[in-house]
């Protein structure tokens, strides 16, 4: 139908306006909650109680105290650090080790290649499940160990297969040429294969990055020390479990200070904001990754 519109001049009918309106409503339903929380996080107690406009298109009163409160909370600080640690270290380690294994699997003459692939693929269909995995982690003595957050999501068979299919499209002649020039296998991997695969490594890396950033359950499950929980678990405690522990030392209920809700909103905003900032740049990788997966199926 787009083609039709190209031939004639763009002419909007009544139906076009209805469709546009419906889509606009949907887009607003997505933007508004985020905007509302942003405005709430900037509002003061006095502003909210004197305002008769519940929609909060602009902040009621203005203060940045909620953000100061959030960033000065020791739990949010430690949570943020751990989230950044697991995201940065976890994503790099994951991509590095998955790329190594995927590269080896892309060698079509490697003895035992099929066996290895099967060995990895079984995990796509059979998993231990919540409790057996928990007990095994416990028996391995990894409970409450920060490195578990890096180790546990280190490999993912699906991503490995995507990387393997990409590596196998790299012409063999390039490797041969490097080999003749006296490059070792490690050099070939580091200086020929990796530079050629940057786009697909970034694509998979983006996936892993968001998985790490949005993970909270592994932290909640395997960690008992509160100071070792990722930031999402702390936000969960602040907003969903409404634990007062996180609010200690924060004054609320005064006219020029934020309300409890504003502090919660500020907590949500500081975890959403990084996603909002990164999303426009990496969106296309997700779309590409999705189509890549669809082709594989």
């Amino acid at each position, binding site marked *: 139908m787009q083609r*039709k519109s190209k031939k004639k001049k763009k002419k909007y009918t009544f139906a076009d306006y209805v469709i546009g309106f419906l*889509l606009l409503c949907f887009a607003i339903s*997505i933007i508004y909650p985020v905007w509302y929380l942003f405005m709430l996080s900037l509002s003061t107690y006095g502003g909210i109680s004197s305002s008769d406009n519940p929609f*909060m298109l602009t902040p009621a009163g203005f203060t940045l105290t909620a953000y100061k409160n959030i960033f000065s909370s020791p739990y949010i600080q430690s949570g943020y650090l751990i989230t950044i640690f697991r995201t940065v270290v976890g994503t790099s380690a994951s991509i590095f080790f998955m790329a190594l294994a995927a*590269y080896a699997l892309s060698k079509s003459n490697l003895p035992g290649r099929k066996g290895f692939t099967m060995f990895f693929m*079984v995990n796509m269909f059979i*998993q231990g499940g*919540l409790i057996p995995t928990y007990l095994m982690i416990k028996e391995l003595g990894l409970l409450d160990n920060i490195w578990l957050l890096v180790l546990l999501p280190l490999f993912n068979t699906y991503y490995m297969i995507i990387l393997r299919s990409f590596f196998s499209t790299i012409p063999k002649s390039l490797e041969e040429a490097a080999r003749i020039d006296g490059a070792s*296998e490690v050099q070939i991997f580091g200086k020929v294969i990796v530079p050629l695969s940057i786009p697909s490594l970034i694509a998979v890396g983006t996936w892993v990055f968001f998985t790490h950033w949005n993970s909270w359950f592994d932290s909640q499950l395997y960690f008992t020390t509160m100071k070792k929980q990722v930031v999402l678990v702390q*936000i969960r405690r602040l907003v969903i479990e409404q634990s007062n522990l996180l609010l200690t030392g924060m004054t609320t209920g005064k006219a020029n200070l934020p309300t409890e809700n504003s502090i919660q909103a500020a907590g949500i905003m500081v975890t959403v904001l990084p996603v909002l900032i990164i999303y426009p740049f990496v969106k296309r990788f997700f779309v590409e990754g999705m189509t890549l997966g669809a082709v594989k199926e």
Partner: protein
Amino acid sequence: MKKDPNQMNLVQKKSKFQLIGKQLYHYRWMYLFLLPAVIWYILFAYLPIYGISIAFKDYNIVEGVWGSAWVGLDNFRKIFSDANFARAFKNTIFISALKLIFVTPSGLILALLLSEVKNKLFKGAVQSFSMLTHFFSWVIIASIMTVMLSPNTGVVNQIIVMLGGEPIYFLAEEKWFIVWVVLSDIWESAGWNALIFIAAISGISPELYEAASIDGAGRWSKLFRITIPCLSGTICTVLILKLGGLLSGNFNQIFNLYNSAVMDVADILDTYVYRLGINSMQYSYSSAVNLFQNVIGLLLVFTVNKIVKRAGQEGVV
């Protein structure tokens, strides 16, 4: 290779082993590259799979997974007389069915609406925003809902009060809870689900539409005679995947939204297993429930797939 080993002379044998040895040596770096993966899969994939054995054991903390006594199918017999299991089973299927009816079509409808938009900028913007929520963790989505739906301070209830109504405790009333589970799932996934349909729509040959235009077909007849029939394969695939997942609820969503007031409608198998195992430390029984759920789920996938294949569509497994 298929020769009788007795007939094979020593030289041949030796050279064969040498050949294999040479090959293994040639690929020694590749095996080193694979080593971390193999170790990881043994520790974090195969050990937990072995751990499923506790479903057939009576786990005690001192003996651990390896040493606990075998009890056969005792844990599984318990499942059938467990009222909480029955409730969780029913809720899981009910919520999944509701999502199948409302959430899956929402992605399709969004894709169809987007495909009708002529203004490319508007189309791109709406699509970008619609996918954004998929990258929010459920902790964040549930937090946003908790703030906005709060009976005293939430914007939704303030509007209801402004219009002269009574505030509703949305997440603590069973009916409303279910409504918000479905709505929030649409909010989170419609844009992402639309992606696969958008790809399918862009694959439909434009000649079909041109021919239809010449024949004087309007928007609706093009929709029902070209777009939808061309999408039937994709729709079928998506439905199979959803049907196969009937027993695996969205743990992240329910766990972050539910509370003791709505347990009767909200508790799904995944949350039940979590509470049984982690809160009540009934490790063996909860593993049995989990295994039962997974086996039925797997059977479901294969059955649905078979039916679809028999009906002449392409399966997914």
